């Protein structure tokens, strides 16, 4: 068993410190032997350039919101895990002119400046990205922001943050996105909620006073498919993020449980599982927009569940009980059905519990969770399809961690974590291993990260 542990950069003072501690106190050699599989916390020794945000300047009425916008942008850039963000300096120290030698002395490689003024009902924000080393403006943009009480205000600021990430790295950001998930209320019911990628603006979506499961975003971010027990048996519906019901999947296979919807990248085909219909279970697809075209992909006496499409729509990864009770495995098959191959490291007659796959938007990685050590803990795992499979990376090392979902940047995963202090939504950066808590202390589950959300 090959184990590589690379300590993350020491200047990830808080988060990486926690991670590194847990890595060193938990001997990975105690984990189960998985033939042909390398299992361990492997993070690249990534260099992150330092980035500073100069306090945003407000002119012509823009001073009212300058610090609020600056705070959102600063946090988004920190959450991108592409930079080592230097804490803001007091206005008095920096003034309104860019002082490259000062930022250079502070170690900054990038500097973001912003200027806001009132424009019509909203604002105009001018952002500049400075290359401190070369003492020049690398990129500049002017962005319209709606008024502060507009529903799209925060998301508009997040879009600017993603633009700054793209300027500096060429990679897509994920700030302009939301996460849908389930949360258990005091009455024991489960409803769907959404929260912004930065952990703000928590909103309830469904209000069925029932069990609601498996929220999943449509590829354009305008709809959320769910499985609801509101009629007593689970059925699949589409709602918008305000909970308005848009469509209902008919019981096209007769009686049975209809669960775990997943959108095809075409946006109208939904893959889902049916259990217990004429003693037959399986994964089916149905075109919700055309209201037609039921297709049977896999199944029979076994149970296939939790389908997830590859971004090109040609493949489906899913969870299956076809090897029997207690040994669920992750498999993949062609999107139109056909022979499936096992992605998780199952050996016939052996054990192993792997579940809840999610295919990365970059197409190369599939994340899922697995029972790793003998104490029955669940951890987030990632398998790289380009490696021919079989090499698992373990991304968490503490508590229980389930149901990962990829961010649109293909780099972050949100998952349901359980720690000694309770349950919460957590985000891990697959590249650096940095971990942050998105929403703590609630009984949350089954998060699904939206695509980048276009202006409304």
């Amino acid at each position: 068993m090959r184990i590589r542990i690379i300590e993350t950069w020491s200047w990830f003072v808080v988060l990486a410190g926690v991670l590194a501690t847990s890595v060193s106190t938990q001997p990975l050699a105690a984990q189960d032997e998985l033939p042909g599989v390398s299992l361990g916390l492997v993070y690249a020794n990534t260099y992150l350039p330092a980035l500073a945000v100069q306090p945003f300047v407000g002119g012509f009425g823009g001073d009212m919101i300058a610090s609020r916008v600056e705070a959102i942008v600063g946090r988004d850039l920190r959450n991108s895990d592409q930079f080592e963000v230097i804490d803001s300096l007091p206005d008095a120290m920096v003034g309104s002119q860019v002082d490259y030698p000062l930022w250079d002395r502070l170690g900054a490689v990038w500097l973001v400046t912003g200027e806001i003024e009132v424009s019509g009902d909203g604002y105009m924000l001018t952002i500049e990205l400075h290359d401190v080393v070369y003492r020049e403006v690398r990129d500049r943009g002017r962005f319209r922001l709606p008024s502060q009480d507009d529903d799209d205000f925060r998301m508009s600021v997040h879009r600017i943050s993603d633009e700054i990430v793209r300027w500096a790295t060429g990679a897509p950001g994920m700030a302009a996105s939301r996460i849908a998930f389930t949360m258990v209320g005091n009455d024991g019911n489960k409803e769907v909620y959404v929260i912004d990628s930065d952990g703000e603006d928590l909103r309830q979506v469904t209000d069925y006073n029932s069990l609601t499961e498996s929220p999943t975003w449509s590829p354009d971010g305008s709809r959320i498919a769910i499985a609801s027990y509101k009629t007593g048996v689970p059925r699949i519906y589409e709602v918008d993020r305000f909970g308005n019901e848009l469509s209902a999947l008919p019981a096209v296979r007769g009686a049975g449980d209809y669960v775990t919807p997943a959108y095809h990248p075409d946006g109208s085909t939904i893959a889902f599982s049916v259990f217990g219909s004429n003693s037959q279970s399986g994964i089916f697809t149905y075109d919700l927009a055309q209201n037609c075209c039921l297709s049977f992909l896999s199944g029979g006496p076994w149970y296939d569940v939790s389908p997830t499409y590859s971004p090109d729509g040609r493949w489906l990864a899913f969870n299956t009980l076809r090897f029997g009770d207690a040994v669920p495995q992750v498999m993949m098959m062609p999107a139109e059905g056909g022979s499936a191959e096992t992605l998780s490291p199952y050996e016939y007659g052996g054990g192993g519990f792997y579940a809840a796959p999610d295919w990365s938007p970059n197409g190369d990685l599939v994340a899922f969770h697995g029972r790793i050590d003998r104490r029955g803990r669940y951890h987030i795992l990632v398998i790289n399809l380009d490696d021919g499979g079989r090499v698992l990376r373990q991304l968490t090392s503490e508590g229980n961690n389930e149901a990962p979902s990829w961010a649109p940047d293909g780099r972050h995963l949100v998952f349901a974590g359980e720690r000694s202090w309770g349950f919460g939504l957590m985000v891990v950066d697959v590249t650096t291993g940095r971990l942050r808590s998105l929403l703590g202390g609630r009984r949350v589950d089954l998060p699904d990260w939206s695509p980048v959300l276009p202006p409304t």
Partner: protein
Amino acid sequence: MIVRRFFITVFAATLLVGACGGDPPPPPPPPQADQDSLQRYNDSVAAAEAERRAEAERLAAERAAEAERQRAVRAARASLEEMVFFDYDMSDIRDDAEATLRAKVDILRASPQVQVRIEGHADERGSTEYNMALGNRRAEAIRQFLVGFGLAENRFEIVSFGEGRPLQQGSTESDWARNRRGQFVITAGADAINPSN
């Protein structure tokens, strides 16, 4: 004492003499016919009384039988609704569950109108979506067990609640053991439950 008894005797004799003093009145005719009707009357009263008593006894017995039947129906219903439990991550019918399910088979055979929804549940561990599959496998295992005794499959519908409806809220081994279960809801024929034998 003797003196006193003497006086009483004399006094009684005096009364007797006085009574026999005049012509004796003719004795009333013997009520022959009336004697019969009285007898019949008395007999009929007795018969009615007996009948009433028998009726009351019959009613009491009937009430007792009905109460007994109701009790048996309640017991049968409780037996139909009795939960069964599963081992961790498994959908096999355990031995103790087999006995519970056999009792249901007998009642369901005697009560052809009764239909049942079988609900499968899982404990909180593992994957939430996998647990929905596991709950359905448990419900299906129960249905197949019952159908294996010749009961019609269409008398049972199944539904999985996964880990969503725990019986107990805690996270101990004993909470989990209670939450890994099959539950039974009578969906039709609840007033036509016949206790077996």
